[in-house]
């Protein structure tokens, strides 16, 4: 695991919004800000580490109870504000290690907190807000389900420090009773198991892979390029349906998700039979 989780999140939040402090009343681990994207104001959100956070198991960039409800609050605020006006874009900047693994979290129903954040993102998307996810670092497991995976369009940096996966390597190795080396070898053969972002891109779930020269210290050109790509993704999201079907209709899915496509066509046919 990278010990630098959250560095990229903070760096890119600052680069795209010019801000790096939380909203009043919010925990330090959630950065939210309005900022100009193209010709309009977007809402940017990012979860970052807070070594002094209230919950001991959510101090290193994990998405915990407070993070999830804060994201949900800020997104719902935007939905409410824009009921009768233009639906402003939402940009989720993702560098999240995982969900928070703790006893307090389970006792206080982190499953509901997680659902509440995903609900807010998904409801914003269905209300017509373009929801764009920019993966700048790690997007792992429940952390990504809570913060980012309900977006209309997902962009990620084409870079070794970027990882989108169901479970971090060490834990996945333990659970499947393999060594990390075996797991990495399997990933070469079985694309959905790979930890390489370029393999992830083959699954057809991403809108685009972006190359930036230095993701940890972006240049002015890098930042401008990412902004341009976000503007384009926002326009693309506005031009399409609000559901997630684009993921299964992508070129990558035609190749890599044949099983899904077969299920869908057969089920549709049988559903209609009497």
């Amino acid at each position, binding site marked *: 695991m990278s010990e630098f989780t959250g560095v990229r999140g903070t760096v890119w939040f600052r680069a795209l919004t010019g801000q790096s402090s939380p909203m009043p009343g919010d925990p330090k681990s959630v950065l939210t800000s309005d900022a100009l994207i193209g010709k309009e104001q977007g809402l940017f959100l990012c979860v970052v580490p807070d070594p002094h956070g209230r919950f001991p*198991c959510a101090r290193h960039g994990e998405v915990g109870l*407070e993070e999830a*409800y*804060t994201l*949900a609050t800020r997104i719902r605020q935007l939905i409410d504000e824009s009921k009768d006006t233009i639906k402003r874009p939402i940009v989720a900047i993702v560098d999240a290690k995982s*969900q928070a*693994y*703790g*006893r*307090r979290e*389970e*006792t*206080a*129903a*982190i*499953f*509901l*907190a*997680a*659902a*509440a954040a*995903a*609900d*807010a993102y*998904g*409801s914003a*998307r*269905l209300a017509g807000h373009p929801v764009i996810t920019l993966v700048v670092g790690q997007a792992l*497991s*429940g952390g990504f*389900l809570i913060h980012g*995976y*309900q977006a209309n369009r997902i962009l990620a940096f084409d870079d070794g420090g970027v990882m*989108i*996966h*169901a*479970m971090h390597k060490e*834990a996945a190795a333990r*659970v*499947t009773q393999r060594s990390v080396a075996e797991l990495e070898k*399997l990933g070469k*053969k*079985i694309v*959905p*198991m790979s930890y390489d972002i370029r393999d*992830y891109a083959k*699954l057809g*779930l991403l809108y685009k892979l972006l190359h930036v020269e230095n993701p940890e210290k972006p240049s002015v050109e890098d930042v401008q390029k990412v902004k341009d790509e976000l503007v384009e993704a926002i326009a693309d999201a506005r031009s399409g349906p609000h*559901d*997630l079907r684009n*993921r299964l209709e992508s070129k990558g899915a035609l190749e890599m*998700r044949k*099983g*899904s496509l077969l*299920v869908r066509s*057969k*089920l*549709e046919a*049988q*559903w209609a039979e009497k």
Partner: protein
Amino acid sequence: MTNKRYGANFIYRQSFIELDARERATALFDAGTARELLGPFDRVESPWLAMQGVTPQEDDGCVVMKGKIAGQASVVVALEGAFQGGSMGEVSGEKMTAALDLAYADSKKGTPTSAVILLETGGVRLQEANLGLAAIAELMGSVLLLRKHAPVICLTAGTVGCFGGMSLVAGLASYVVMTREARLGLNGPEVIEQENGIDEFDSSDHALVWAIDGGEQRYATGLVDALVEDDTPQVVEAIRKFVEKGAPAVHRSSQVDLYRSRIGALDTSRQWDPKELRTLWTAKSATEGKQ
């Protein structure tokens, strides 16, 4: 509803937990109305397991049935906990998502079609890793679509329970039904122990596990809508009741202010006795609280 079958009638209960996924799904429908879709004879199985030396199953551990519950059009999707721990793979995931999307399409065309999701699952099937996680995200998107038009009811009866990403699906549901035997949580006790040590969570302490994740606790804290005995008629009755009730105006996962303030009020300097939460979070305030 919870205790009337204890006592002399106990031995006459018809266990629901002992049923497999197909029997559970069938039991929920009005007699003679259920029809299985994409059943084992269609042989749509996981394309990823055989190449890893794992024997696939011809329904990929997910049963889809369409029919009527309480006279209303309904679809039931049931995960088979006995196959790969009820884990979400590409095929089982797409079966669920496609079934909900079809229910949504019918609902929009004027036939409200409820969905009942039987969750016995540890979450993502790690042999299909990223496609499993993506399937959960897409299923969540489809729950959000359907629940505006018809209720999405999650039932976790046990004994696998509902963990991992699929607990978010339960979180998004219109209604959740549990038994005392079932558990519901994001991270299973073993995972927490692995990640943060035995002091954080001793997964061998079963009393603690059920005190936190168990159906009784989740019901007493207002996080689920019905607690039923492991008795098929009781389970069926609870599901029928929620189908008849229709989708709620405000879903639990949209009550952000209520839950955010509850989290804000907790003393995080120590671990809590789960019972404390029962007085702080009453069932009534959760289902009737406003956004």
